[in-house]
């Protein structure tokens, strides 16, 4: 294992972490502001990926694909908020979990009917097919680099909106003390819708960008939902800053676990045993991280509410 390999894996981890952050930010905002658990967030991610892949196939323009993916996902998010989520805000978390689980079931069958049961191909844009020479000995796929840049841009944009705009101020006010914000005259309903749609947009971006790296298939939303939930819990539910730190941690730990644990185990134990234990340990790494964090800080790293 040389240093180039380690650097490459770390960059991969940060890229994965940024994508997780895009999902986690939406989840944590919805939770922080509306006190609502939304399991269907992964579904929005899936729609982003499917729509972007379809548009890319038809138009051969990657930019148009991502834009379409994001806009349609925002529309789906708005539809979901107006028809269902709005009626769930005052319910307990268990009701929200069950109803949004119902949305997952509905959406999965819709995707199956629309695009078929088998995974569809999402290709990387032709212009970004080749590698970029990051260091003299480190060629890095340019598409992964694009994801890295896009993730950073989206995170910065979110930071700007949340911390330096009037809307962000309303969102933060709602997250830290909702009844007080309502009493001060914040139009909560429209803020809620807007927050939900912003969350949907971020999920759509992540889906559209991740599509070409993973397979675009039914269940991809649930596959990434769990790591995203792990991220918001480690970060402290409701805290955007916390979920950024946690997303980086989880991204790097998960990627490093998969890349480094199996070869390390092969050094210290019998190959057959290492082949058994390695993947299991790699899969577990992120959950161990969460359990350890919650064990010492039961409210996550950056608890949003005192």
């Amino acid at each position, binding site marked *: 294992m040389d240093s180039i390999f380690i650097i490459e894996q770390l960059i991969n981890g940060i890229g994965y972490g940024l994508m997780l952050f895009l999902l986690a930010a939406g989840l944590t905002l919805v939770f922080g502001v509306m006190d609502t658990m939304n399991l269907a967030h992964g579904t929005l991610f899936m729609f982003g990926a499917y729509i972007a892949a379809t548009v890319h196939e038809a138009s051969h323009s990657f930019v148009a694909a991502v834009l379409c993916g994001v806009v349609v996902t925002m529309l789906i998010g708005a539809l979901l908020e107006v028809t269902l989520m709005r*009626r769930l805000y005052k319910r307990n978390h*268990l009701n929200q979990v069950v109803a949004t689980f*119902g949305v997952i079931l509905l959406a999965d069958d819709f995707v199956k009917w629309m695009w078929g049961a088998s995974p569809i191909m999402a290709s990387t844009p032709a212009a970004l097919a080749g590698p970029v020479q990051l260091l003299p000995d480190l060629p890095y796929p340019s598409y992964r680099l694009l994801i890295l840049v896009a993730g950073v841009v989206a995170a910065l944009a979110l930071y700007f909106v949340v911390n330096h705009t009037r809307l962000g101020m309303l969102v933060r006010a709602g997250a830290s003390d909702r009844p007080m914000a309502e009493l001060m005259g914040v139009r909560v309903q429209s803020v809620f819708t807007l927050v939900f749609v912003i969350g949907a947009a971020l999920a759509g971006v992540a889906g559209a960008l991740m599509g070409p790296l993973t397979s675009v298939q039914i269940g991809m939303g649930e596959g990434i939902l769990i790591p995203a939930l792990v991220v918001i*819990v480690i970060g402290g539910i409701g805290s955007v800053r916390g979920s950024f730190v946690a997303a980086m941690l989880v991204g790097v730990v998960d990627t490093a676990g998969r890349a480094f644990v199996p070869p390390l185990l092969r050094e210290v134990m019998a190959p057959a045993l290492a082949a058994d*234990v390695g993947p299991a*340990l790699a899969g577990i790494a992120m*959950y161990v991280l969460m359990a350890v964090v*919650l064990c010492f800080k039961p409210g996550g790293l950056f608890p949003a509410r005192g």
Partner: protein
Amino acid sequence: MSMTTTEKNPMAVAGPALVLLGLAVFPAVAPHFGLDYYTGFVMRMLIVMLIATSLNYLMGYGGMVALGHAGFVGVGAYALVAMTEAGITNAWALWGGAMLAAAVAALLIGAVSLRTKGVYFIMITLAFAQMLYYLAVSLRVYGGDDGYNLYSRPVLGFGLDAADDATLYWVVLAVCAACFLFFHRSVGSRFGQALVGIRDNESRMMALGYPVFLLKLQAFVIAAAVAGLGGALMVTQNSFISPSSMHWSQSAVLIVIVVLGGLGHRWGGVIGAAVWVSLEETLRMSTEYWHWPLGALLIAIILFAPEGLGTLFHRSPAGKGEGRGGIFYLLRRSA
């Protein structure tokens, strides 16, 4: 709770007794109508009812929403497989051992998890269940990802032949009925009432001097042990177990079943499991798109009868805050 009102109602005793009688004669009657297949199906449903009831005990009475219950089901199932490999064939010993294994796992996991509350508790139980899932995937001796096939069913003894589906059905029914009775008695006991008190107001119970943490841990261990028993019964019936039955979505389905049937309702787990398992079976046989009706049902239940289907079965005094859910209530309202 509405428990005391139903106690006086003769239907509350007669209804379950009739259902139990119906379930008991089912395997004897079914072959005459060519319904042999359904003996196995109802047995599977009974086991899901048992597991869902244990989760309802934890969630509905203990107030602990755990998203990792399928993990304990898996621990029980794999414990049975491990003991069978070690040469134990007696079913009762295997089932007892499976319960013990799940209880020990729950003791360790609960001791850490119960430090957290609410959504954090949901997530930490999920985390531990995922660890158990990956552990099962890595156990290549027991088939790893592909699962494990049991060559023969365990031995029941007492002149009972476990290879016969009807016999195993009756044993499973007896075990499940005993567990339901246990849970029912437990809720009414001093321990159960303390548990309900903790659910409703933890700090007050702590101020009253109850060992809140230990009581919750005890409930967590009991629920997990019964879930482990459910897992062991499942392997006994199917002679097969794979890590996919420990996947987090299985834990989510169990929560869904409990909420569907009625959280904290005595028959919540039973009704939820009956409805869910039957619907799943019927829909899966009739259409390729069998998920969406279930999804639509869940959304409808949450929007219109959030306290679950169980509330359909007993009337509540008009004007009281309890028992607002259920379709009967809506009909009464609109009439």
